[in-house]
C-alpha cells in the first residue's frame, strides 16, 4: 500500500538552477525507505518537500505532485501545520530545545493546544519508550535536555517527533555525528518503529543504507537513477551507476 506517491516532481533553486529532475517514486507504508547517493544529489531537498519544510528554504517546487494518502500536499490550500504533525522530521545534528526533557517532548502537543496533563504525560512516556530512551531518562525528566549525551539527544529528538503521533517519520542523516553504539541504538529503534510508522531515511553511508533499507532509491545529481527492494538494489543493481556507487568506485 502506498503511503506517499511522488509524481513528476521538479525542484529548482531560487536562481533557476535545477535541484531535482522528474522524480517518480512510491513510498510504501510501514517500511523503511532509504534515499541514498553522493552529496548534492537532492535527497535532503526531497525530504524537506515531504513536510513542506522547503517553504523555509531556497528550494521551490517547479512542477509535480506529492500525494500523501491520495491528497496533494503541494497544493497551496494544504494545511501545512497539520501536515507537519503527520510528517515528522529528525535532523542531522541533534537540536534539543532549551528546556527540560519533558518540555521538549510535550512541545509539539502544546503547539496544538493540548493542555491535559494526562495526555501530555502519556505522550512523554510513549515517545521515550518508542525511541528506546525511557529507561535512561525516566528519573530525570525535568533535567535540562542539554545535559544528555549526543546519542541520547538525538534519540530525544526522535522521541519528540514520536510524541506528536505522526504517521510518517523523515530522518536526514540522523546518525552522522554519533558514535557506533548510539548509531546502532537508533537503527534498532527504527526497525521497531516501522510496524507503526512509515519511515524515510537519508543515510550517511552506503553501509547504513544497506543495513536498514527495506526499499531503496539511488539519487545522483538530481536524478532518481534506480529504486527497488533493498536486498535487490544492493546485490543486483540494474544500472551501472548504481553498481559503481554501491561498490565504492566513486562517492
Amino acid at each position, binding site marked *: 500500500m502506498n503511503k506517499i506517491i511522488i509524481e513528476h516532481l521538479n525542484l529548482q533553486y531560487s536562481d533557476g538552477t535545477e535541484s531535482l529532475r522528474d522524480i517518480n517514486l512510491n513510498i510504501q507504508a510501514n517500511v523503511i525507505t532509504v534515499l541514498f547517493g553522493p552529496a548534492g544529489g537532492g535527497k535532503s531537498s526531497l525530504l524537506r518537500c515531504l513536510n513542506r519544510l522547503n517553504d523555509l528554504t531556497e528550494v521551490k517546487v517547479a512542477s509535480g505532485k506529492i500525494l500523501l494518502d491520495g491528497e496533494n500536499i503541494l497544493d497551496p490550500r494544504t*494545511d501545512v*501545520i*497539520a501536515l507537519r504533525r503527520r510528517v515528522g522530521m529528525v535532523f542531522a545534528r541533534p537540536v534539543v530545545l532549551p528546556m527540560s526533557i519533558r518540555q521538549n517532548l510535550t512541545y509539539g502537543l502544546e503547539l496544538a*493546544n493540548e493542555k491535559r496533563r494526562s495526555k501530555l504525560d502519556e505522550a512523554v512516556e510513549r515517545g521515550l519508550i518508542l525511541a528506546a530512551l525511557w529507561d535512561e531518562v525516566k528519573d530525570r525528566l525535568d533535567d535540562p535536555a542539554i545535559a544528555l549525551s549526543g546519542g541520547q539527544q538525538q534519540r530525544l529528538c526522535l522521541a519528540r517527533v514520536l510524541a506528536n503521533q505522526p504517521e510518517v517519520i523523515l530522518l536526514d542523516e540522523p546518525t552522522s555525528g554519533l558514535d557506533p553504539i548510539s548509531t546502532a541504538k537508533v537503527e534498532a529503534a527504527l526497525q521497531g518503529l516501522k510496524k507503526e510508522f512509515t519511515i524515510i531515511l537519508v543515510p550517511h553511508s552506503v553501509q547504513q543504507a544497506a543495513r536498514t533499507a527495506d526499499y531503496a532509491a539511488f539519487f545522483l545529481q538530481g536524478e532518481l537513477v534506480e529504486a527497488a527492494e533493498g536486498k535487490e538494489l544492493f546485490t543486483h543493481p540494474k544500472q551501472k551507476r548504481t553498481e559503481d556507487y554501491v561498490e565504492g568506485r566513486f562517492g
Partner: protein
Amino acid sequence: MGKSKNWRETIITAVVRTCGYSAVVFVLLIFFFLLREGLPALAEVKLGELLSARWYPIENHFGILPLLTGSLIVTVGAMLIAIPFGIGTAVFLSEIAPRWMREILKPLVELLGGLPSVVLGFLGILVLSPYLRVFLNLPTGMTALAGALLLGGIAVPTTVSIAEDALDAVPQSYREGALALGATKWQTIWRVTLPAARSGVLTALMLGIGRTIGETMAVMMVTGNAPVLAIKLTSIFSPVRTMTATIAAEMGEVANGSTHYHVLFMIGLVLFLISLAVNIAASSVVFKSRKRAERVLS
C-alpha cells in the same frame, strides 16, 4: 481550529510589520515638523541676512554664521582630542594591555560614556573653566577650548568602544603572520592590524563626530555663549556659541510663531541634515568596505 489560528497569525503579523515601519515613520515625521516650523524662517528673513555674522535676535539680527563657526571650532577641537586619545586607547586596550587590565578598563571607559552630559558640563563650570582661566591666563575660562575638551571627553568613550571592537575583530592570524615575517609588535599594529580594522575605526570616528555635533548641554554650560565669529586660530581661547546651545538657550523664551521661533527651528533642521549626512557617509564607508571584502573573497 486551523482557521482561527490563521486569523491570529495574520493580525499579529500585521501589528509587528507596522511596528517595524515605525522608525521610518518617525524620521519622516521629525523631518516634516522641522520643515514645517523652520521653512517660514526663509520667507521671513532674507538669505543674505541669515548668512551674515550678527546673531542678535532682540534686534532682529539672525545671522547664523557665528553659530556655525562656533559648532565647527568646538567639533574640530573635540575631534583633535578624540582621535588620538580614542584610537590610542583602543589600540592600547586591544593590542598592548594584558587581558585582566582590559577587563577592568574597558567597562570603565564605557562608564564614562554613560555619564549624562549635564554632569560633565557641571564639572566643566566648577572645575575645568576656572582651571583654564588661571592656567592660561585668560579673562574667562568659558571658552571654545573648554567645550572642545569636554566634547572630546564625551566622544572618546564611543570612539574607544567601537574602535576596540573593530580591532578585536581582526583575525589573530593577521598578527601572527606579520610577526612571523619579522615585524615588531608596533609595526604590526600600524601596518597590519589598524588597516585591517579600517572600516570599523572610521565608523567609530564618524559616530564620535556625530555625537560631538549633536551635544548640547555640556557645550552650553562651558562655552560662554557669546555668538561671535570664531575664525581665527586664537578663537579657541574665546567664548563661542554653538548651534545646539543656541536652540537650548533661547527656545524657552521665544514667542510661538515668531520669526525667532522659526529661525531656531531652521537651525534644528540644519543640525538634522548634518547628522543625516554624517550617518549616510558612515554607513556607506561600511557598505563599500563590505563590498570590497565580498569581491576579494568570491
